[in-house]
């Protein structure tokens, strides 16, 4: 089967293991393409894609745009900060206006969880969720899992610890779904205030001690402390967080095994991850960025090719 089961990529929760594997196999091919002297293929030359970002982003947006251009799609960019959204236009109106210009796909980031799901009910274009609030960030989870698969061969039985701010993290939730669907064991680790109350019900292990989590895991996916989402104090100070949960080269060297360090970016250097750890041989952070383009090319290609 070479067709995704879904018309949209709204979240990892909605897609199957077969879908994820198809995306990975296609991404393998695109990774080869983006390492050629001529990095562009004409597949999406009659497809127009709008990148609609109601929330800030550097990496995800660049990565999507590059993926679209490598596939020869026509791209328009929209960000809420300099648009009519400021004048009070509704989400549906904004998107319908964009679609009236004959756009085939929408890549959307929004601060409200469920915003892309709402759109999917009302419009015809394919939608890719590029992050909806604290809910899901499916392409990040796909590229994380793809990078682990590339490094370790397979995810079956592998132990992945997600460390940091689980409460506000859409990356954590999408990662948990993706990793579990691919047969990995998942642990979340962080201060109790940053762990959602019922996270155990997702079938993950919960650990409060970062040392124990590192001892347990094969891969540590370290999340960013989202300073912009901390309206109330979840921990006394950044220094204290760094002291108890920050990962340094020394902590990694003291483990009696090799583990892989990942981070979805942007890194708060010296908070959740020290510079020497982020730049060490344990880290595959830059591989994640490279794989991000290949994985997003695969997602766009497979969604665009799915004619209904």
């Amino acid at each position, binding site marked *: *089967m*070479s067709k995704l089961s879904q018309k949209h990529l709204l979240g990892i929760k909605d897609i199957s293991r077969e879908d994820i594997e198809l995306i990975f196999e296609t991404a393998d091919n695109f990774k080869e393409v983006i390492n050629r002297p001529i990095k562009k293929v004409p597949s999406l030359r009659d497809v127009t894609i709008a990148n609609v970002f109601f929330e800030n982003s550097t990496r995800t947006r660049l990565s999507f745009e590059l993926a679209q251009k490598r596939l020869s799609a026509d791209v328009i960019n929209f960000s809420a900060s300099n648009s009519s959204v400021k004048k009070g236009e509704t989400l549906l109106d904004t998107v319908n206006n964009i679609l009236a210009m004959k756009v085939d796909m929408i890549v959307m980031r929004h601060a409200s969880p469920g915003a892309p799901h709402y759109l999917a009910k009302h419009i015809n274009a394919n939608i890719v969720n590029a992050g909806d609030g604290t809910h899901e960030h499916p392409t990040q989870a796909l590229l994380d899992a793809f990078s682990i698969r590339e490094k370790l061969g397979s995810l079956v039985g592998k132990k992945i610890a997600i460390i940091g701010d689980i409460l506000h993290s859409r990356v954590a939730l999408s990662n948990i779904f993706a990793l579990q669907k691919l047969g990995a064991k998942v642990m979340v680790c962080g201060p109790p205030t940053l762990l959602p109350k019922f996270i155990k019900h997702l079938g993950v292990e919960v650990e409060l001690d970062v040392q124990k989590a590192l001892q347990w895991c094969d891969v540590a996916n370290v999340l960013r402390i989202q300073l912009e989402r901390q309206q109330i104090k979840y921990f006394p100070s950044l220094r204290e967080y760094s002291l108890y949960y920050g990962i340094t080269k020394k902590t990694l060297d003291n483990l009696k095994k090799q583990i892989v360090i990942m981070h979805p970016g942007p890194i708060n250097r010296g908070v959740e991850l020290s510079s020497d750890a982020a730049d060490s041989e344990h880290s595959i952070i830059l591989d994640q960025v490279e794989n991000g383009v290949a994985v997003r090319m695969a997602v766009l290609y*497979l969604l*665009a*090719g799915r004619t209904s």
Partner: protein
Amino acid sequence: MQKKLILDSDLLDITISRLCQQLIERHGNFSETVIIGMQPRGIHLAEIIHARLQKDTKKEIPLGYLDATFYRDDFRRREIPAKANETRIDFIIEGKRVVLVDDVLFTGRTIRAAMDAMIAFGRPAKVELLVLIDRKYTRELPVAADYVGKAVNTLTSQRVLVELEAQGHKQNKIWLVNKD
């Protein structure tokens, strides 16, 4: 489903020998020649021909695999997107004489896509096409093969089925199949 045998194992062997001889005749010592098999079904034939040429000429000839999926012109025009396969070209094709190998030449669209895909790796001095089965009068583009195993009159409603031992079949056999 009606099936008619076009080539059996022995005939196929003779045909491949002839194709190899023709290649040797035109390419001499193969110093500037590379062989590229088309994914997914041309690679087995390319491997067979490559192995035989290396044996006969005692020369190292580069062999690559090319996948043209991302260059196809029927993307979004078919129900299910074509599945991509591995492209592996570990050598420079700039200035080389490329022999493209595929099993069946039908509409010519795959070959058009393949030439597009190949250009992403450089500018070959010359490109030739070798096919095992040439389906006559079915072309939708002006594409012709330089080396033809067997030319066959077919209807659009028919299909050519290539079964090779390299693909896990018991015997090398090539069939013409009526679709209904």
